[in-house]
Each structure stands twice: as C-alpha cells, then as structure tokens.
C-alpha cells in the first residue's frame, strides 16, 4: 500500500505553491468533506420516540435518534487548470457525482472550501423537464432553467430539435414527452443540455445515450463544448471514453481521492484494482 502513496505524490504535478502565471487555476478543492444526512432510518428500537428525540435534541442526539450520516466525500483536494479535461473514475458509490455537484455549488460542503472561476455547470436538465408537456415546451423550459435568455432559446430552438433527431420519424416534438421512447427522451435531454456553452463544464455519464449514430454526434458535440469551455470534468465508467477525452484523471474510492495523475498511469492502476 505504501507504493500507492509514493505514486500519488510523485505524479501530483499541481503543488499550489509551485503554480505560476503559466497555469491558471479554474477549480480549487481544498479538503472537501461532503456528508449526507438521512432521516428516519429507524435506528432499532422505538422510532417514534427516536423522532421526538431528534426534534428536541438536534445536534447531540443525531446518531441515537436514527439520523444516519453518509460521509460521501472525505477530505478531497485538487486544483484544476484552464484547458484541462479531467476524468473522474471509481466504482459505483465512490462519490464521483457528489463531488461534481459540490463543485457546481449544488450541494453544500461539510468542511473545506471549493473555489471556482465563474459558475461551473453540470451538463443535465432532466430535473427541469416535465413529462406531461410537449417536447417543444420542454426545450424552452430546459433552456430557461439552464439560464439561457428567451432570445437565446428561440435562436437555438431549431438547432436543438435537429440535433436530437426527434423529428426524423415524424412530428414528435409537438407530442408530450411521456409518449417518447426512453431513447428518444434521453436524446432530447442531451440535446437541450448541450445547447449552452459553459466556462467549467461537468459531464456525468452522459455519453452513453441513444443509438450508435446519436452517440457519435454527441461525442463530436462534447469535443466542441470542450473547445469553448475552460475546463471539462467527465464522470464515466467507460475507460475508453476517458482515454479519448481526458488528459488527467482523479480516482475516487469510498469518498477518498486515491490517485490523481495522467490518464494512462491512473487507468493502469484502476484496471488492476478492478481486476480487469
């Protein structure tokens, strides 16, 4: 285990003190802890009294009263620089998505700080869309939810619809989204999300949507987004797409940063770890 430590420290190229004008940081995570609290996990006996306990003695009795703490990210530090494409890998539940949400400012951190350049955005609008509305209205709603202006949405509307290919099989954009096949819905969601340019862009396993031809189109779109974005983060379980797009990789395991370094080195260790 000791060699992992050496390896990690050796390849860590971004000692903050050594950074000078040549490398401009865009995201600095400083010993970030993220803790989820889950209510009502019923810690054994008497969950009603436990609930009362929870209300009366907030801080002290948290554990006794059945509030479970999930320490999702533990003391993670890294510095991302302009022009980097960083992959996040790790087994399921290792805290990758949670870390990205915290960088985007969507989840509060328990300890530590995250500094960012501008407002990083997570590629995804799923939550803003409504299945009972037509695809057309969802394009407008999703665009506005991402912070585009009314005019921008109107300008990009045709582009988004064409990119999604929803209308290839007839006039589907004027039908409610609940009538779409899961593939069609996923394509429309990706097309809406990818319509905006971002400074710091974070992509959470969005590459595996749709059929083969749509995947190719979305990979091309992501490369294009990378050109405009200062820094790109990509969460993926597909080592090939990490190799194709990223030059640096962060490996999270059980919420801890296990390795941080050039793609090839980290992936080699990761593949050894997962027994591939």
């Amino acid at each position, binding site marked *: *285990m000791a060699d*992992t*430590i050496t390896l*990690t*420290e050796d390849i*860590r190229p971004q*000692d*903050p*003190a050594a*950074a000078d004008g040549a490398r*401009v*940081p865009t*995201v*600095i995570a*400083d*010993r970030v802890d993220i803790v*989820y*609290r889950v209510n009502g996990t019923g810690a054994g006996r008497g969950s009603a009294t436990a609930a009362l306990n929870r209300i009366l003695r907030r801080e002290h009795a948290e554990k006794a009263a059945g509030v479970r703490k999930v320490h999702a990210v*533990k003391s*993670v*530090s890294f*510095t991302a620089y302009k022009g980097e494409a960083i992959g996040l890998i790790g087994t399921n539940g290792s805290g990758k998505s949670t870390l990205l*949400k915290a960088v*985007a*400012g*969507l*989840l*509060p*951190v328990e300890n*530590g*700080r*995250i*500094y*960012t*350049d501008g*407002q*990083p*955005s*997570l590629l*995804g*609008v*799923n*939550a*803003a869309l409504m299945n*009972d509305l037509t695809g057309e*209205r969802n394009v*407008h*709603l999703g665009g*506005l*939810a*991402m*912070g585009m*202006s009314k005019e921008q949405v109107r300008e990009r509307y045709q582009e988004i619809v064409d990119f999604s290919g929803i209308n290839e099989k007839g006039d589907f954009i004027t039908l409610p989204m609940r009538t779409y096949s899961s593939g069609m819905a996923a394509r429309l969601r990706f097309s809406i999300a990818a319509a905006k340019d971002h400074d710091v862009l974070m992509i959470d396993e969005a590459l595996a949507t749709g059929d083969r031809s749509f995947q190719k189109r979305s990979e091309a779109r992501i490369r294009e987004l990378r050109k405009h974005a200062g820094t790109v983060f990509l969460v993926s379980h597909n080592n090939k797409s990490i190799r194709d797009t990223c030059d640096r990789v962060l490996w999270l*395991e059980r919420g*801890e*940063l*296990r390795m941080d370094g050039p793609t090839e080195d980290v992936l080699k260790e990761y593949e050894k*770890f*997962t*027994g591939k």
Partner: protein
Amino acid sequence: MSQVLDTPPPTATPGHPSDDAAALAARYGLTVSGARPTLPEYIRQLWARRHFITAFATAKLTAQYSQAKLGQVWQVMTPLLNAAVYYFIFGVLLGTKHGVPDYIPFLVTGVFIWTFTQSSIMAGTRAISGSLGLVRALHFPRAALPVSYALQQLQQLLFSMAALVVILLCFGVPLSFSWLLAVPVLVLQFTFNAGIAMIMARMGAKTPDIAQLMPFLLRTWMYVSGVMWSIDKVLSHSDLPHWAMVLLESNPAAVYIDLMRFALIDSFHAHQLPHHVWALAIGWALVAGAGGFIYFWKAEETYGRG
C-alpha cells in the same frame, strides 16, 4: 480483489494548506462555489431568471390537466364546480345567509380568494423539499421556486376570477368601475402570498414534516378569516374583547377577502371594511414580501442538503 484502502494525505503541506488554497484562489480571482450572493446580486440574479419563473409556473399549470380529455377546460370547470358545491350546501341545503345580502357572490368570492392564499402557502411549503432534484441539478436563485409556485396559483386564480365574473353577473351583481380595484388587491395579495411561500419554503426545506401540519393550521386560519361569514356582522353583536376584534379584522386573509368583496359586490359597502384597510393590505404585503424574501435568502446556500 483487494478492498483495503489507503489514502495519501490530500495536501502536500500539512501545516496551513487552506491558506495556500485561499491565497491561490484569491490571486486568480476565484470565488467560493455555492456561496450565498449579496442581497442586491441575488435580486439581480432572480430578475434575470424571470422568464424561467413564468415559464415554470405556466408549465406546471398546463401539466396539471394534460392527461384529462377535456384538457384546459378544467381550469374554469374546477372553480365553477367548487362554487356549485358551496351553493348547494350553503344556499340550498342549509339556506344560511347570516343576514348577508348577495350571499352566494359573497361566499364564492371569499372561497376563491382564500384558496389563492391557502394553495400558495401549501405549494410554497413543498417548493424546495419537493423539487430537490431540480435544486441539485441546476444552478439558479432558489427563490425562483416559491415565487414560481405562487405565480402558478395566481394564474389559477385568474381562471377562477373568469368563472367568478360569470357567477356575479348571473346573481345580478352589476358591472361597475370599482371592479378595477380587483387589480391592486390581487397584486398586494400575490406579494403577501409569495412572501409567506418563501418563509414556508425555507422551513419546509429544513423540516419537511411541516407539510403534514399545514393543512390543520390553514383550516383554522380559514375559519377565523370570514370566508363563509361576515366578520363585520358577527363583531357588531358580540362581546369579544377589543384586542380580539382588532386581531380578527387585521388578519391579512380577511383584509384581502373583504377588499375583493368590496371591489366586486355592490351590496358590500365601505363601512363593512375595517379601519385603514388599504394601509393594512399594503403593510401586510410589504412586511411579508420583503421579510419573506430576506428570510429565504439567508439560507440560500443550504438548500439541497437533505
């Protein structure tokens, strides 16, 4: 496969690593992610999202009846049926008028205006806790959610008001210029509702149990707000202490309900209104609107934890 984990110390210098990070961040002008913006900045951000707020409200309203065969016709049908039920119970079955002229217009106006406040508060309570997916996926000033839910209720009320106009004319209430007063009343009531919705949104985000409690509080509030009875008539021959009367009369829900009745129904005269009624209406709107907004903003960075 080995599951033993060992993590290297995350920062190279164990002494004062956060100072280094803070200094580096300061040098390149990076800001803390997810920090609460200043109040003027927050207002500016919220204003920039105004189209999202209206689009979200309209979308919610439209989605409500999209599965029904009659579709959006229900927007007007629902309040009309509601009024019919009240007419049946109070007008036909009980025949109670409590000495109020034009009792059915009086009652229906009260029910619609009360429902606006009630459903804004209920929707506000769930605005954050019920939209956690949205809060955790996208970045926008969170006040957009309770305001949007209150706006959805206002749109809903406008449909009800269309139904109300039909009912008023059917019951022989004449069209008059005083109907224009309905506009400022609605603006003030909406500001009040949005403010309370924001307060409830913050409380509901922290303690979702409040949503279970609210229906009981709201029902109590409804019965003291003179929705089905005339506060003025009851107070004139009751021996309640003076402070209780003042409390009943300055209740914001009662103020907005009575103002709307005054605006729409010709037999509801100015002397039935409490003293300084417009000052009360404006005061409640300002206190709840501004207070609710600031109270909500104070916890902006904590929404989404849970």
